[in-house]
């Protein structure tokens, strides 16, 4: 960047040109500079945007500034800045006054003290502002975990993850540890990220969400209305799990098959639903496409794997071994959705063979024949 100096261009501000960020910064600076709670009058006198907007002759201007302060306080609290309300006695105990307080120990990040193994624990008492003591190895793990998570494509938490990484490394010397995991070709998709933001907002605020869904088993998209119970990133894709009005049951939706998600904007401060206490996201994790069913009884499917692939199937717990098969090559699957299962077996290119039921064998053969026919001769776009 060389030795160039920059001159900051600053505007002379009147009250109505003081930005919201400047107003918030003024409010925080004032509250953090006090050891006791401040009354609303003290806050109005100290924060220029409030002070200048009050016309002493107008009661309505005072009410409008009060509403502005209430909105500011609520938004800052929502962002996690713990402004406390306090009620205290004034006039020699004659009356109550409401006040607001922001404790430095609740606001500022405690110092992070990284200890080598040889270090003795400091024995410091644990207080809200005591240094956070962490072993060097633990801090390495934490930073590595944050770096990896920041790269998850289309994650609604990417910016938060990077921000946490900045804060947790604030007290550390610059470090350059080569990452163990790197992602290929997963740069993210703005449309998908926007859908993820909507779904995350819906989940965090428990607001219902509607969207158009392209199910792989249907030609036409269906209109869905759900109460989101959970979000998960599995096998390179994002999924939302929630109660689906159309099926009146819990369903799993792949986010990249959704279009035009719309959040219920009515009564924004009130949740639309409660997440059932018995709901567990873990029950929906680690599933393959054929395991996300329509609630019908699953179809038992026996598959024989060729010699080497049987080791792979066993190692990865695909299905379970059929007990009366001595060599363990035959495994039993509980299949909720036939199409993705058939595609999976087809994709093994003959390394696995469906033994039963006959209906699935017929469907697989029909599909294989269609793929074969589509590849005979030169490609024809209508074929």
């Amino acid at each position, binding site marked *: 960047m060389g030795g160039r100096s920059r001159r900051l261009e600053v505007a002379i501000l009147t009250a109505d040109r*003081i930005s919201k960020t400047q107003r918030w910064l003024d409010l925080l600076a004032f509250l953090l500079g006090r050891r006791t709670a401040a009354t609303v009058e003290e806050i109005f006198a100290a924060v220029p945007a409030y002070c200048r907007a009050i016309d002493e002759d107008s009661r309505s201007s005072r009410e409008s500034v009060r509403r502005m302060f209430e909105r500011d306080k609520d938004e800052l609290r929502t962002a996690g800045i713990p402004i406390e309300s306090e009620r205290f006695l004034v006039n020699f105990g004659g009356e109550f006054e409401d006040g607001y307080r922001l404790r430095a120990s609740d606001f500022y990040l405690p110092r992070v003290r990284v200890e080598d193994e040889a270090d003795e624990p400091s024995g410091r008492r644990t207080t809200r502002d005591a240094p956070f003591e962490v072993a060097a190895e633990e801090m390495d793990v934490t930073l590595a975990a944050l770096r990896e998570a920041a790269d998850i494509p289309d994650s609604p938490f990417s910016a*938060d993850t990077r921000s946490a990484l900045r804060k947790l490394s604030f007290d550390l010397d610059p470090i350059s540890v080569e990452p163990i995991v790197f992602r290929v070709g997963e740069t993210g998709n703005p449309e998908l990220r926007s859908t993820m933001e909507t779904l995350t907002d819906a989940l965090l605020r428990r607001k219902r969400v509607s969207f158009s869904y392209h199910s792989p088993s249907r030609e036409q998209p269906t209109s869905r209305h759900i109460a989101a119970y959970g979000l998960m990133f599995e096998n390179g894709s994002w999924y939302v799990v929630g109660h689906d009005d159309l099926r009146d049951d819990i369903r799993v939706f792949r986010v990249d098959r959704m279009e035009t998600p719309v959040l219920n904007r009515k009564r924004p401060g009130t949740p639309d639903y409660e997440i059932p206490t018995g709901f567990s996201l873990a029950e929906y994790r680690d599933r393959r496409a054929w395991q996300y069913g329509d609630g019908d009884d699953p179809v038992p499917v026996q598959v024989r794997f060729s010699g080497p692939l049987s080791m792979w199937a066993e190692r990865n717990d695909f299905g379970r071994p059929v007990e009366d098969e001595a060599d363990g090559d035959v495994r039993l699957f509980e299949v909720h959705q036939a199409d993705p299962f058939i595609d999976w077996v087809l994709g093994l*290119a003959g390394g696995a063979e469906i033994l039963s039921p006959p209906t699935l064998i017929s469907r697989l053969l029909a599909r294989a024949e269609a793929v074969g026919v589509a*590849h005979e001769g030169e*490609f024809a776009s209508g074929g």
Partner: protein
Amino acid sequence: MADKRGSASVQLTRLLYLLPAASRENGLSLAEAAERLDVDVETVVQDLEDVSAREFYHPAGGAEGIRVEVEADRIHVQSGGKFLRPRRLSPREALATHLALRRFAAGLDGDAHDSVLDIAHRIASALASMPVDDLADRISVEETGDLAGPALAPLRKAIATGLQCELVYVSADGALPTERVLDPYVIAVARGHWYVIGFCGTRNAVRVFRVDRIVSLRVTEQGFSVPSDFRAEDYGHDGQVFRSDETTDVVFRYRGTAASIMADRSGAEVHSDGTVSVLRAVADPEWAVRHVLGFGGAAVIETPSDARARVVAATDRISLLYRPAG
């Protein structure tokens, strides 16, 4: 000039990091600030101008004043004893940290797994502005599905400690499993599939292995170091991981849901009939066959013709499997 500051909340988040970082003895360069905050230098300058502008409405030398100087493109801040530290982790940052650590723990075994979860809880209780609530159980980024495979945890350990591995690998072509000695350099993830890239002592070359196809693995006591000229990026190609010594261009045509997903991923134009053509460099011709078979008719190879012929041969082999003996 376009306003790049974003919402007040986003700008405040930046400032509450920028002010303490630039309050330190040596300040902070504009370039460093921009890099750390994932914004451009102009946005940092606009943020600083907003802070400086406060001087015009605060009494000179007032307690709320924050003095900002940019000299030789280095930011120095004097804030009268305030904003000398970043603020605590916000609820979303604390949640993100918790999810990141839980994800990391999922890739580890036994005590290592438990100790990472312990750090997650300690950070949430000591450094967050408020507790991480049950939302942490409503979101999962663990990625521990079967495309990762049980070899992932020991591989992470081997890479972190620089220790050689002995493994048995089942390749996709149905050949007999092979024993390999591997110096694992890095793990790569592409479209949900996990790979390890490293020096294969058996083949005396750098090779790529799909983690779920490693059917047994032992971390040895033998150390290794990663060559300085190794670049993981050289092995990533258009969402696939492979050595790029010899590749063939294959054009795939997708239809239905697959078409819209591929259009989003590749940016390819959608044809008038709703299908999408995607050109991919393919290292293993049989990969292209497995790829179209796995789409069960929603994908077709347009060119080259020998790749199309391989698909026909594969479907013939599959049909033969189901033909009654004799």
